[in-house]
């Protein structure tokens, strides 16, 4: 019996997110008197795989089959389910990111398991197995009980602290015995976002709304984001107007983020917007309307003109 954690890599490297997942799996393993096996798909050097041991993985299965590079959902789910069966996994943990969301439902059906997606904490009880997740897009939480022998969980980002431990892992090659017929996804083109902080990875996010008045007025926000190493985001009207790409839209129908610090410039804070950002640790709002609902969600606020405030903030950050 084990806890299986699917640790995705980015060009052969893990991210903080991967270590959060392993830390989370290790905390579950401790309660269930079990151990953590990480599954890594793709070419990752043993040095990098060994880093997973520092967060509690005692075994790493490495599946180095290039055919999985296309992230074919069907083939990859089959391989992960095979690894779960081989390890006798009682719990399978994924990140609540694009890939985790794509794979976890398929894997849960294969394993006849119960799925909770977007968990925000460790299970509050193990028998019965009850876990907390966000519902109504951040407006509430639900405690969900899984009534199946095997549990599949996707973990929301930034909801579990890294826990380093001294440990070693055995690295074992894993052959999923995949069939060519299982691979039906052909990747014709990949565009990686480079030179920018990815919104989902960002510890700090700088976001603009309708109060920015035009897509041409983003220079100050970009400068502030650069200085802070922050990701860029926007509210829905901004992406609907085409001022910024829809990939930057945070809110109920866009991305749901949970950074340490969220700056809302000229965003009124409609309930749909707050749903996407309410899990941020600290929210800062700058808006000329003192009645804007964003101030009810914010920790710090300035009532004022964003174009007057922004240069002052940039200067203050430069002086830090």
């Amino acid at each position, binding site marked *: 019996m084990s806890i299986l954690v699917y640790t*995705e890599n980015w060009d052969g490297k893990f991210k903080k997110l991967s270590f959060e997942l392993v830390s989370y799996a290790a905390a579950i393993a401790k309660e269930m008197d079990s151990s953590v096996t990480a599954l890594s798909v793709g070419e990752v050097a043993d040095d990098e795989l060994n880093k997973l041991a520092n967060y509690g993985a005692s075994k790493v299965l490495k599946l180095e089959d290039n055919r999985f590079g296309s*992230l074919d959902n069907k083939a990859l*789910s089959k391989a992960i389910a095979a690894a779960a069966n081989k390890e006798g996994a009682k719990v399978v943990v994924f990140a*609540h*990111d*694009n*890939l985790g*969301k*794509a794979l*976890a*439902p*398929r894997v*849960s*059906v*294969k394993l006849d*398991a*119960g*799925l909770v*997606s*977007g968990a925000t904490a460790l299970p509050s009880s193990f028998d019965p197995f009850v876990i*907390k997740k966000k519902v*109504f*897009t951040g*407006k509430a*939480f*639900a*405690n969900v*009980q*899984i*009534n199946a022998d095997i549990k599949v969980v*996707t973990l929301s980002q930034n909801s579990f602290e890294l826990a380093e431990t001294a440990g070693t892992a055995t690295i074992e090659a894993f052959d999923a015995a995949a069939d060519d017929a299982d691979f*039906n*996804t*052909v990747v*014709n083109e*990949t*565009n*990686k976002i480079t030179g920018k902080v990815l919104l*989902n990875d960002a510890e700090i996010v700088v976001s603009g709304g309708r109060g920015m008045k035009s897509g041409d007025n983003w220079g100050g926000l970009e400068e502030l984001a650069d200085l*802070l190493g922050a990701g860029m985001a926007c509210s829905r009207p901004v*992406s609907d107007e085409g001022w910024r790409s*829809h990939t930057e*839209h945070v809110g*109920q*129908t866009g991305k749901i983020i949970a950074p340490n*610090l969220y700056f809302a410039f000229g965003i009124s804070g409609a309930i749909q917007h707050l749903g996407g950002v309410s899990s941020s640790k*600290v929210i800062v709002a700058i808006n000329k309307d003192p009645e804007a609902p964003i101030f*009810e969600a*914010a*920790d*710090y*606020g*300035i*009532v*004022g003109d964003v174009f*007057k405030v922004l240069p*002052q*903030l940039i200067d*203050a950050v430069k002086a*830090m």
Partner: protein
Amino acid sequence: MKILVLISNVPDTTTKVRFTGDNTSFDDAGVQWIINPWDELALTRAMELKEAGGVDKITVANVGEKTTEPTLRKALAVGADDAIRVDVPARDAYFVARQLAEVAKDYDLILAGIEASDYNGNAVGGMLAEMLDFNSVSAVSGISIDGDKFTVNREIDGGSQLLSITGPLVAIVQKGIAKEPRIPAMRGIMMARKKPLNVVAAVDAHEKTSYVNYELPAPKAACKMVDEENAKELITLLHEEAKVL
């Protein structure tokens, strides 16, 4: 080619969320119900594909009681050709996918929203694909038909990809799949009344999860205000007090 669009009936996104029965159930008193926003975009894209040619029929399907029919009628008014309602209250994602698997077998393309705005499950589309042994792509922000294949834009963690994939396919769609959701026109609303809405009996299935209770987020402390003329103070507070810079 036949397209099936999965429709979730969800509370309007401006709903103030409340619970009853010692926080064990969602209080639906006075709630306005709508098509789940992502499903609405999926339906819009399905319409665009049909208008481009090569699509014979668009069906919409929902698992729910009769009270969900106005939402299906709205989907018919937007332009779907017919509707299926599996007559049983939705219990959990697994249960819903089991019900849909019975009616979804014969479609070439199934479009599902990436999540429903109520329980945020991110699950039904992927589960259904697995039950039917269909291919699936998630985080889809663009799709077109290319002969017997589909050309798909998908968002990956750190970028995007252009794919080609064979059907039958479940495409789990998100923002970008269509620009603006279509609003039913008066003519569409009139026609929707006459379009077939087939009520199908549920099959025997068991849910795998149950909702124990709900919690509302803890109320926030009052927002600490900084003067516009002294905005630099904000950075000091974030650095020294909140310790997030």
